[in-house]
């Protein structure tokens, strides 16, 4: 093992030698630089690996042969080794990145880079507080210098302000150290922490305030982060990435080391509040930012704030070192990558990012991945870190802090995904960017590190990710990597993969309908198969489509199969982002998908909140949820139900869905509507329903939350159906219709009865069949005609008869008219409603179902009936693959129509497992009866067919044999023939009287609400942003203000300076019990078993 002290000494020495080496030529100094970095990284990494494996013990190094507390001692533990490895890798990547970026490369830049690493090592390793000050100065000075190397005015100004505030920080630190030294007589951190409580004085109190404010400045805490944010905006991003990866982490670690000094509940509160305020406000202010780098500055400040917030929790063993380490690692990897990207695409304003990296698919993928990583989505390390941290918090008295934490995380979604939205390809031909290898390699390396660690974590056996799911996801990953193949080939491969995956699932018995998971897995398989088949006929718009689709399907399989809460949530979030990217591929997808990810993100955080409530109640697995009791159960249920309601687009939170459904690629929408909208339902069923099952009366006073959910479902069914009537965009019409249909499903589940669940499950399958049929057919129509607008079409029945028939079957099924399969769904739902005693809700559902008739007629009439447009006279039938998939779906509908029992009998069995009661009194394939009613599917079908045949035969018998088919324009217009013949198609203002009748309820109130909501958030951000005037004097004033505030109000000097007076008024005087304040944590090696780097425990 390399002596850790060399990590400081070697770069320090090299830094001084480099100007000499440079005499031999720049190449030589670059080589020396590189070798130094390799040595540094190698040494740190070998320590990290060895410590991780436990082959060596953490090492204390005593300098100058003086044992501590007199001499300066260094400590090399796992945390130190990881931070330094990270610093080393960042150093290498930054050096690589900076080579082509400097116009006139000077040796000074290299020297300063090396110095920064030396300072980082010192800051990280030292256990002496004054020594820490020295290294902080070294890093600060190197930082100022490297910043001031930039010739731009902005950089100079930012650097100057940063230097002033940094100076104040140094002064405060020095003063603080001096006071503490006076009080305790030692400079060794561990020694000082041990002695301080007994010797506490007013001077020590002030010293701690100084130390803390110094740390706030150095760690960019609110409100002293102004200069740092200016720095991000003005300084070369390659340099900023280096600082993020080295100094920032080291300072954070230094804070961790002196944390034992800050004993007492008051300090804990101050540190946590400060960290959380920085996190939430930084993210809030970032939402208003138009300048990309400034936005990243706010984000950095926020992320570090989160880590600062967690330090006291780490001390209290609430959060593990592993969790914190993962968060820190994730932030470094993702933030550095993003900073590098802002250097590759040098547009200050976010608007200038339109079409960024359009010619470079690798960079696009890496950029997207970095955004996913920073947003804390799986499989990147931040996701796991956040989960473990939250899980720890949930089980502790600090659980309420989860609320602002999730809020801040959601705000992160707002601005990062806006960035992604803006960077979508533009209409103008994208400028060609030739990106040198040394610019694109660093983000690639960092993303790869994150990805490898994350995938390793996803492989954790506790997560229960099945090998089947992995198969689908790896297939997706390979296809993503093979995105250069022609679209047709990819579509074929993707279909084969789906087919193979489905066969494997079937043969492994994963499709058993009589289990919930099997039932929903079958939905996924049916959807994936049929829609992949249809996609063979309609090419995808984007070459990443197929890979992402398989990834999405794999993530669904995770959600459906796992029993672990973490595995479930990982699958859920994977589903969120894969579907987000798929929605984004539509022509107007970026804007629509932005709304999609915001609402999905919010839904995800609600679900996370629910899961955390469950974790707080002691649950780890889904099957363990049944043990929840009382308020924990209630709140877990409510949060999960709320997440579900948002994710399925319930009324009030529906505004994202019509946009996403209609703007998503035409071949993806059926999957979105038919399958993905059912996954939240499954989640609710498998997760939330378990909570209420074991007899916990989840009532909020007299209010049954399930009843509220039922009304949400009913109102959604009604409202969305009504809105569908007035759509002119056929996909939007069907989108609203889908939302309404899922409303019925939610209603059914909310009933929490065997009949209600049977209705909902049956409807889930049936909705997949008929809505998939409609969407696939519509996709064919759009593919042929190129329009989505209903008023542009008409009379296509003669050109696309198969598609017409498919839509006809689809709308009859949807409407619930017998004899097709839709009726059984309605029949079950209404009976369940009556049985449950929700009469008004049942009537509302009936009304809503009848409201569907107008839009269904509009759909089929405007496209297929009436008069054919001139330009459509040569249109062909939809591609064969589309027609084939239509027929498969029609066959499914027909099977369900004559024999609904084939599915309902297994469903009954699945539901019986939950309620112990069968839904039916009689259930055969074709005949069903409940306590309330009965229904003979085969009988009705035969009756209808026989009657239709008789009537048709009658008409044909009486009709003359020779008739002429009337052409489109051979019609009478009240006795006059309009010259010249032209098409008259009634398609505009289709239901005008209907609209007039409903006008009072049709005001767009929900949209207005969300609009004003987002405006309020943004104006709040705008108001807060003004704190940062950009004026150095203001920032100094803030620093002074914070010091005064803390000294005067939070930690007023004790009345008597006697150290023995434990005044009741001020919290800090009370010596903290030794047990509660393990001061040694900072100086000890982390316990083996807490392993940063992703081992899930």
């Amino acid at each position: 093992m390399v002596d850790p002290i060399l990590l400081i000494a070697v770069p320090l020495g090299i830094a001084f030698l480099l100007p000499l080496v440079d005499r031999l030529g720049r190449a030589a100094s670059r080589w020396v630089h590189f070798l130094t970095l390799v040595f540094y990284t190698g040494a740190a990494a070998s320590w990290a690996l060895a410590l991780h494996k436990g082959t060596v013990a953490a090492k204390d190094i005593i300098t100058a042969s003086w044992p501590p507390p007199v001499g300066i001692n260094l400590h090399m533990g796992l945390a130190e080794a990881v931070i330094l490895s990270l610093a080393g890798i960042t150093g290498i990547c930054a050096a690589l990145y900076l080579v082509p970026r400097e116009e006139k490369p000077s040796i000074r830049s290299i020297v300063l880079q090396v110095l920064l690493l030396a300072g980082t090592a010192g800051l990280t390793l030292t256990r002496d507080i004054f020594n820490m000050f020295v290294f902080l100065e070294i890093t600060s000075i190197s930082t100022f210098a490297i910043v001031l190397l930039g010739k731009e005015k902005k950089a100079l100004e930012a650097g100057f302000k940063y230097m002033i505030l940094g100076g104040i920080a140094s002064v405060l630190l020095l003063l603080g150290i001096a006071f503490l030294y006076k009080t305790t007589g030692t400079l060794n951190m561990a020694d000082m922490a041990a002695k301080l409580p007994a010797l506490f004085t007013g001077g020590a109190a002030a010293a701690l305030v100084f130390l803390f404010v110094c740390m706030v400045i150095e760690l960019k805490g609110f409100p002293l982060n102004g200069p740092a944010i200016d720095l991000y905006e003005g300084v070369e991003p390659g340099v900023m990435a280096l600082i993020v990866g080295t100094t920032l982490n080291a300072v954070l670690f230094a804070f961790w080391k002196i944390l034992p000094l800050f004993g007492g509940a008051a300090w804990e509160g101050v540190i946590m509040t400060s960290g959380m305020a920085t996190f939430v406000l930084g993210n809030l202010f970032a939402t208003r930012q138009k300048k990309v780098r400034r936005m990243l500055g706010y984000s950095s400040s926020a992320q570090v704030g989160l880590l600062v917030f967690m330090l006291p929790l780490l001390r209290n063993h609430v959060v593990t070192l592993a969790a914190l380490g993962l968060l820190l690692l994730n932030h470094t990897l993702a933030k550095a990558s993003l900073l590098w990207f802002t250097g590759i695409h040098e547009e200050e304003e976010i608007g200038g990012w339109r079409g960024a990296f359009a010619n470079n698919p690798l960079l696009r993928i890496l950029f997207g991945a970095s955004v996913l990583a920073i947003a804390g989505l799986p499989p990147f390390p931040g996701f796991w870190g956040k989960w473990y941290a939250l899980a720890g918090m949930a089980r502790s008295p600090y659980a309420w802090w989860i609320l602002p934490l999730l809020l801040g995380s959601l705000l992160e979604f707002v601005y990062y995904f806006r960035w992604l939205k803006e960077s979508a390809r533009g209409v103008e031909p994208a400028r060609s960017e030739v990106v040198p290898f040394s610019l694109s390699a660093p983000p690639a390396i960092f993303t790869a590190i994150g990805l490898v660690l994350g995938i390793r974590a996803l492989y954790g056996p506790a997560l229960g990710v099945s090998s089947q799911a992995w198969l689908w996801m790896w297939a997706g990953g390979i296809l993503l990597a093979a995105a250069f193949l022609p679209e047709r080939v990819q579509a074929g491969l993707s279909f084969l993969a789906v087919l193979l995956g489905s066969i494997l699932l079937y043969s492994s018995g994963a499709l058993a309908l009589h289990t919930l998971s099997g039932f929903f897995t079958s939905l996924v398989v049916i959807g994936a198969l049929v829609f992949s088949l249809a996609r063979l006929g309609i090419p995808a718009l984007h070459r990443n489509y197929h890979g992402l689709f398989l990834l999405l399907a794999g993530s669904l399989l995770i959600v459906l199969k796992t029993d672990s809460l973490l595995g479930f949530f990982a699958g859920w979030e994977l589903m969120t982002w894969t579907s987000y990217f798929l929605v984004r591929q539509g022509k107007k997808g970026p804007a629509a998908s932005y709304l999609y990810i915001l609402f999905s993100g919010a839904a995800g955080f609600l679900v996370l909140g629910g899961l955390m409530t469950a974790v707080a109640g002691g649950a780890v697995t889904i099957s363990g949820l049944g043990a929840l009791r009382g308020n924990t159960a209630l709140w877990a249920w409510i949060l999960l139900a709320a997440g579900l309601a948002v994710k399925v687009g319930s009324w009030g939170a529906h505004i994202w869905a019509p946009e996403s459904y209609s703007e998503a690629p035409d071949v993806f929408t059926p999957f979105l509507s038919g399958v993905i909208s059912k996954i939240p339902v499954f989640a609710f069923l498998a997760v939330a329903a378990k909570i209420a099952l074991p007899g916990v009366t989840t009532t909020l006073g007299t209010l049954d939350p399930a009843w509220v959910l039922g009304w949400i479902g009913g109102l959604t069914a009604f409202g969305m159906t009504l809105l569908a009537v007035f759509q002119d965009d056929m996909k939007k019409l069907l989108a609203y219709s889908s939302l309404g249909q899922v409303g019925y499903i939610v209603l059914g589940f909310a009933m929490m009865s065997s009949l209600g669940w049977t209705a909902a499950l049956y409807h889930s399958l049936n909705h997949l069949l008929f809505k998939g049929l409609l969407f696939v057919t519509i996709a064919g129509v759009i593919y042929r005609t190129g329009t989505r607008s209903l008023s542009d079409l008409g009379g296509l029945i003669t050109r696309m008869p198969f598609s017409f028939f498919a839509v006809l079957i689809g709308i009859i099924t949807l409407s619930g008219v017998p004899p097709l399969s839709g009726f059984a769904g309605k029949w079950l739902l209404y009976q369940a409603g009556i049985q449950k005693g929700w009469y008004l809700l049942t009537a509302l559902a009936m009304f809503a179902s009848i409201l569907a008739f107008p839009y269904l007629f509009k759909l089929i009439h405007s496209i297929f009936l009436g008069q054919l447009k001139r330009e459509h006279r040569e249109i062909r039938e939809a591609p064969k693959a589309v027609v084939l998939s239509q027929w498969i779906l029609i066959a499914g509908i027909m099977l369900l129509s004559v024999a609904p029992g084939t599915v309902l009998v297994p469903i009954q069995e699945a539901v019986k497992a939950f309620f112990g009661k069968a839904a039916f009194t009689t259930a055969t394939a074709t005949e069903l009866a409940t306590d309330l009613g009965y229904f003979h599917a085969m009988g009705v079908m035969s009756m209808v067919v026989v009657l239709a045949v008789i009537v048709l035969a009658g008409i044909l018998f009486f009709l003359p044999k020779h008739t002429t088919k009337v052409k489109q324009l051979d019609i009478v217009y009240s006795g006059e023939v309009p010259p010249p013949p032209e098409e008259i198609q009634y398609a505009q203002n289709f239901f005008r009287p209907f609209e007039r009748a409903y006008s009072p309820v049709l005001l767009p109130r929900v949209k207005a609400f969300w609009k004003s909501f987002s405006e309020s958030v943004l104006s709040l951000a705008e108001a807060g942003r003004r704190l940062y005037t950009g004026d150095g004097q203001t920032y100094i004033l803030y620093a002074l203000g914070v010091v005064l505030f803390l000294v005067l109000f939070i930690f007023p000097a004790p009345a008597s300076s006697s150290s023995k007076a434990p005044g009741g008024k001020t919290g800090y005087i009370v010596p903290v019990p030794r047990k509660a304040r393990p001061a040694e944590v900072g100086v000890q090696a982390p316990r083996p078993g807490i392993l940063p780097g992703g081992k899930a425990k």
Partner: protein
Amino acid sequence: MSPSELSLLPKLFWVVVSVVGAIAYGLVIGGIIRKVMARIQGRIGPPVYQPYLDLFKVIFQRTATWHGYMFYLGPVFRAAGAIGLFLLIPVVFGDPRFDNFSFNGDLLMVMYFMFFGCLGMALGAAEGGHPHSVVAITRGLSQMTAYELPFSLAVVAIAAQTGSFSVHQIVAAQQGGVGHWFLFTNPLAAVAAFLAFLGMNMYSPFDIVLAPQEIPIGPPTEYNSAFMSAMMSGRAIFGVAKCVLYMDLFLGGATTILAAIVKVFFIYFWSIFVGAVFPRFRTEQAVRFFLGWPTAAGVAAVLAVMLF
């Protein structure tokens, strides 16, 4: 659920008898309506058997044109839907001969089967390509959705009161005297349902859908000859079927054919008499009307069931 006690052939015989009888009766009622309306308006009016003459006339009329397959299927759906609806409703309580095929489905089935004909009709007429028929269809659909709300509420109230969606059980629950009829035991539901009936029957004031006098719009003008005859008989039996349903739901069903005939007549003429007095609503007025008082009555009926 009361499966038929008859074997298949006698069953079919009685079904044919019922259907023919219902069509015949529907046509007679049509004739009476025309006579009554004429007298109200001070005219002599056509003879009561005029609909028979019309029907036979159109059957033997010839048409030289057709508009495509869906155009054929429209009247087929319409007539099959109307006959099917009739066949799903038991006519005479406790008499297997007039029980029809009601073992195929309950009240919910009947409700949804009503739309079968409407939908087919709408599609068929729309394929004719005449924009006016589509105007009529949109009006019809708008109005239909509106009156279904009070009707649904009434159905829910009755089903909740009976604890069943089975028409047999609903009729059975009303046996034992006039006082047991839902018309009297749940008057609010009856109000809602009978107001909805006005829209369902599409006589004035809710006849803008057909707009019989002024403008030649709507499905009837699109069809002639055998199509027209199918539609006429469909309409005749459809009217009777709806009245039978109302009879079963509110007037205690019928134990004899005669009672059925009388009750159907009165239910039918409720809409005729209202229509004779009131002028026509525009579509949006009609929609708002149904969403107003009839709905309020329906909600009150449901609440009454929940509370008492």
